[in-house]
């Protein structure tokens, strides 16, 4: 470890590792620190990612692709099953990863590109000068060392503290924090190429249950519920999950317990400050509707890495110069999807089981050739006027504007 780098990355998940790799490949000196002893573990993820989206960044590798998904089933509260084929399911058809292997692959790539890496090293405070982030104090093995950097990247995940310490409000409203529990289960007959999503207020209020296969007889079985829907014994995610598993996987064996939180709020108002860029879950760019965040982490990490290279070359790492990062991702496919899915999520969390049943039944009857988001929403609203009422005029307008 040196005392000064061009770029310091806090957190070695997909966002941090891709930022480090991108910048190191362009010749920046980079240090990436990870507070855990082992990047990628423990897993806090359902591990699903869209095929085409992932391919933008990596060539799929059998070492970390656990399953290839060909279709998805959406199960309504009344038990009706709707099959979604790739055209219908869009990017939700994809891969289920082994994140423990995938994350390490990304860290390895960052290291191979020339980035320094430190594990079990915690950023315990930013170094600030006149309101500009200039690096961090790093705690390792009982000692604290100052490391200065031209640009610092906060990639410290859902539990991000670094940006907050730099003066950015990163608090997620309770109702927009999806609280999750998951078992890795084996010994059950599942379709190894199909994901399943269960919706309904008895199954998962303000969220859904997912079954993501990880090979023959093995799957991530998990649940996310709205943060304001649980909080008492019997109605916490783990309680809903245990009831679901008892009913659907009576003979399944649990071989791993995973807990976690996913923000389903809007992204941070600004993902940059003087000398600082915020990426991945720390920037609150996980998808508000699906909870997916792997692609968004890779994309924001890469974009931040590129902007760091440009800004340092021009000798300007002010908030104004780094805004290029913020503007780029907001204008991107991902930025647009986040806006649209936030509006859809705001409707989804208010639906009753009757609403959900009638929506899922009506979608199942739709003509596949018309299956784009706008026609989907038009059809849903036409078939379910009650849903349109819930949106209200303003909600309807912002939803249509976001498409």
């Amino acid at each position, binding site marked *: 470890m040196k005392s000064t780098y061009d770029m310091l990355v806090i957190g070695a998940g997909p966002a941090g590792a891709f930022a480090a790799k991108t910048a190191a490949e362009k010749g920046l000196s980079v240090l990436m620190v990870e*507070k855990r002893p082992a990047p990628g573990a423990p897993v806090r993820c359902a591990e699903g990612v869209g095929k085409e989206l992932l391919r933008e960044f990596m060539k799929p590798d059998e070492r970390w692709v656990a399953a290839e998904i060909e279709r998805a089933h959406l199960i309504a509260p009344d038990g009706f099953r709707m099959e979604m084929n790739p055209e219908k399911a869009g990017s939700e058809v994809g891969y289920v990863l082994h994140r423990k292997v995938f994350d390490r692959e990304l860290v390895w790539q960052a290291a191979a590109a020339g980035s320094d890496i430190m594990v079990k090293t915690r950023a315990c405070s930013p170094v600030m000068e006149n309101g500009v982030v200039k690096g961090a104090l790093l705690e390792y093995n009982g000692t604290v060392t100052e490391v200065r950097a031209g640009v610092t990247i906060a990639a410290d995940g859902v*539990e991000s503290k670094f940006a907050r310490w730099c003066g950015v409000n990163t608090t997620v409203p309770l109702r927009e924090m999806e609280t999750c529990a998951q078992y890795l289960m084996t010994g059950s007959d599942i379709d190894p190429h199909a994901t399943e999503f269960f919706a309904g207020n008895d199954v998962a209020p303000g969220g859904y249950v997912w079954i993501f296969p990880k090979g023959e007889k093995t799957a991530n079985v998990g649940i996310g519920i709205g*943060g304001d829907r649980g909080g008492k014994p019997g109605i916490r995610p783990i309680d809903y999950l245990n009831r679901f598993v008892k009913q659907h996987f009576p003979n399944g064996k649990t071989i791993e317990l995973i807990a976690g939180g996913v923000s389903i709020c809007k992204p941070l108002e600004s993902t940059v400050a003087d000398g600082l860029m915020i990426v991945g879950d720390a920037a609150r760019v996980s998808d508000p509707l699906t909870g997916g965040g792997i692609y968004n982490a890779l994309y924001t990490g890469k974009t931040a890495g590129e902007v760091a290279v440009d800004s340092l070359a021009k000798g300007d790492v002010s908030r104004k110069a780094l805004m290029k990062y913020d503007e780029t991702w907001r204008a991107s496919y991902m930025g647009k999807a986040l806006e649209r899915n936030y509006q859809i999520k705001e409707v989804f969390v208010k639906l009753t089981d009757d609403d959900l049943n009638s929506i899922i039944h009506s979608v199942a009857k739709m003509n596949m050739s018309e299956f784009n988001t706008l026609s989907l929403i038009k059809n849903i609203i036409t078939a379910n006027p009650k849903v349109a009422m819930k949106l209200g005029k303003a909600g309807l307008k912002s939803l249509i504007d976001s498409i």
Partner: protein
Amino acid sequence: MISVRRDICAYCGCCISVCPEGALELIDAYLDVDANTCITCGICVRACPLGALEVKK
């Protein structure tokens, strides 16, 4: 003050980002509560997926 049931906590960090005061931090594999900052609002207790947090009066 918030107390952490370490036998239940799976150190997932879900509670940290909902804390309005920034009183919680996940340090490697344990959850740290800053007694000076915590206002005992209980929001983190509601967010915990496993029920590992309790308000201690």
